[in-house]
């Protein structure tokens, strides 16, 4: 069993707070991603878990045992570094054996573990080579192998795919998912790439400025983002945001207006919240939820400035005089060109509403989403 808890975990570098009170509860065998922009503290948090940095205050537990003062090698943790950090003067075999020799495991045990790992990661041919002559992908597998061979309870990975080229990254993502299945271990994975997080993780920790913004499954993050930051960070292309004005609040609904909307739109919400008329809220609509075809609850008239044809979808960028372009994603190839005047429509149950502090107003999920999220 390898569950982990963080209680009000804080880390200061000198006088500068970098991790500002993190509470986290990770269950055994989850695949957790720490996701966020650079400088948000995700790597620092990982290093605190590994024992490479000292915890300033708060508690960190693995299997209900306090780990704050336990040396890194005794925490039952393995780490794959961003730079792989292989020992350059040792062969692959010696790299894998290094930690095991320190633990004074018998040679038979060491050899059998190395054999097994080499088979799993297809390293058997490379065992007697030195890291210098291996390719990036091979080195990464050696780094993963070195982590696996210790049979840890928890795997920590620090941006493991960021040094690989695009095709390799895709195949390694599949590898990692397979490994998670095979090893049945808890994995904590740091990345700034939301596609990686969304495809690999069971749950994602979205971080900003040393604090957790939301800790939820990928689907939750996409459809029920806790605040504007999460809504903007997750989802490609980026969500479209509008500053709307409250017209009136009904029982479990809010009606808002915007200069560019064809009509005021009433959005169903989960709880009963009252806002004064005229309050400014933020309304978000994902590009996939804007439609060029059917007239829906509300429409916006727009002129297309850029068309990106990606095969499976076409991205239509429209300039509405707002801060950012409003993007619409249409399936397949559409007969719309630059300069065309189009009408974008959306329905009320696809709108995300955020209050005047950028926090999400709980909404009613549309039917198709409700099936996915339990």
């Amino acid at each position, binding site marked *: 069993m390898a569950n982990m808890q963080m209680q009000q975990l804080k880390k200061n570098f000198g006088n500068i707070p970098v991790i500002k009170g993190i509470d986290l509860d990770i269950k055994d065998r989850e695949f957790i991603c720490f996701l966020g922009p650079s400088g948000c503290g995700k790597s620092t948090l990982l290093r605190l878990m*590994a*024992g*490479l940095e000292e915890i300033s205050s708060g508690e960190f537990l693995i299997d209900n045992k306090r780990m704050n003062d336990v040396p*890194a*090698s*005794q925490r039952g*943790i*393995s*780490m794959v*570094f*961003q*730079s792989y*950090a*292989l*020992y*350059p*003067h040792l062969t692959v075999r010696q790299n894998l054996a*290094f*930690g095991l020799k*320190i*633990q004074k495991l018998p040679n038979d045990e060491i050899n059998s573990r190395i054999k097994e790992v080499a088979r799993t990661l297809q390293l058997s041919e490379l065992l007697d080579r030195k890291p210098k002559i291996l390719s990036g992908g091979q080195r990464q597998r050696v780094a993963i192998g*070195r982590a696996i061979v*210790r049979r840890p309870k928890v795997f920590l990975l620090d941006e493991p795919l960021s040094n690989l080229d695009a095709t390799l990254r895709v195949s390694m993502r599949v590898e990692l998912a397979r490994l998670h299945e095979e090893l049945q271990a808890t994995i904590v994975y740091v990345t700034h790439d939301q596609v990686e997080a969304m495809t690999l993780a069971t749950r994602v920790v979205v971080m900003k400025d040393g604090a957790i913004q939301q800790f939820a499954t990928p689907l939750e993050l996409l459809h029920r983002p806790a605040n504007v930051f999460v809504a903007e960070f997750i989802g490609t292309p980026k969500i479209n945001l509008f500053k709307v004005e409250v017209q009136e609040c009904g029982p479990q609904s809010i009606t808002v207006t915007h200069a560019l909307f064809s009509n005021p739109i009433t959005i169903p919400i989960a709880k009963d919240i009252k806002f004064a008329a005229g309050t400014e809220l933020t309304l978000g609509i994902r590009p996939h939820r804007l439609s060029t075809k059917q007239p829906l609850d509300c429409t916006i008239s727009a002129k297309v400035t850029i068309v990106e044809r990606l095969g499976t979808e076409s991205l239509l960028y429209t300039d509405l005089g707002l801060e950012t372009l409003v993007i619409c994603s249409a399936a397949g190839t559409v007969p719309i060109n630059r300069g065309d005047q189009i009408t974008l429509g959306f329905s009320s149950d696809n709108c995300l509403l955020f209050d005047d502090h950028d926090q999400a107003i709980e909404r009613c999920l549309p039917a198709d989403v409700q099936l996915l999220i339990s």
Partner: protein
Amino acid sequence: MNNSLTSRAKKLFINALMLVISCMWLIPIWMMMIYATHPDNVIFSGELVFNPGTDFFKNFAILQGKQDFSMAIFNSVIIAGFSTLLGLLVASMAGYALARFAFRGRNSLFALIIFILAVPSAAIVIPEYIIVVKHMGLSNNYAGVILPYLANAVGVFFMRQSFLNLPSETLEAAYLDGASEWKIFYSIALPIVRPALASLGIILFVAHWNDYLWPMLVMTSEQYQTAPIALGRLIGLANIEWGAMMVGASLMTVPFLLLFLILQKQIIAGITSGATK
């Protein structure tokens, strides 16, 4: 047309000039080896010889007779060898500490070590002698020569520079693997900086082998003298045996010339990186 003529003339000029300079530069070494193989009467005669003779072993016998030169070479090997090995260890441990740890007093200590580099070594000789020979009683003792050499600051400086360039994550990986601080240093950090160790080692070895003043002060008996001292003693004799002396000079020098041929790259690397302080 004009261009290729002047450039060919230029090429000829450069090559001819450099050839003259190189020949002049090689003469001392070449003549040393020539004279080592001729009896002294040939040397005295003033005739110009450029070919090796046959008297090498005769001259060597004279050399052995006068100064037990093979013993002197042995002493040089012991002293230079141990000074280098111990010096590398001490300097790399100190350089590692300065490069990879943050601790109180680190900057002041480093400044002090840099300061050492500015003080001429000749100035230390007198008090060093009093302490080592008179107070510690280490005259005619290998330790008496070797120990002061270990206080050399160049090595610490050089190794610190090398350790600064180590990737932190590799050391952290070893830490995660459960390695002790010493094991991280000895099994991971040190092997990675092996080229630097090699360069420094060669420079230290040559410097210690060639040193004249300090070993001369400590090793007063003929049994413990080093090769340079033995050569120096030959000068002091009433009748200078030139051929024998050239044999001594050759034995001292030729191995290092060969070493230079093989390890030219490392030696030059050591000098240039040490120079960019």
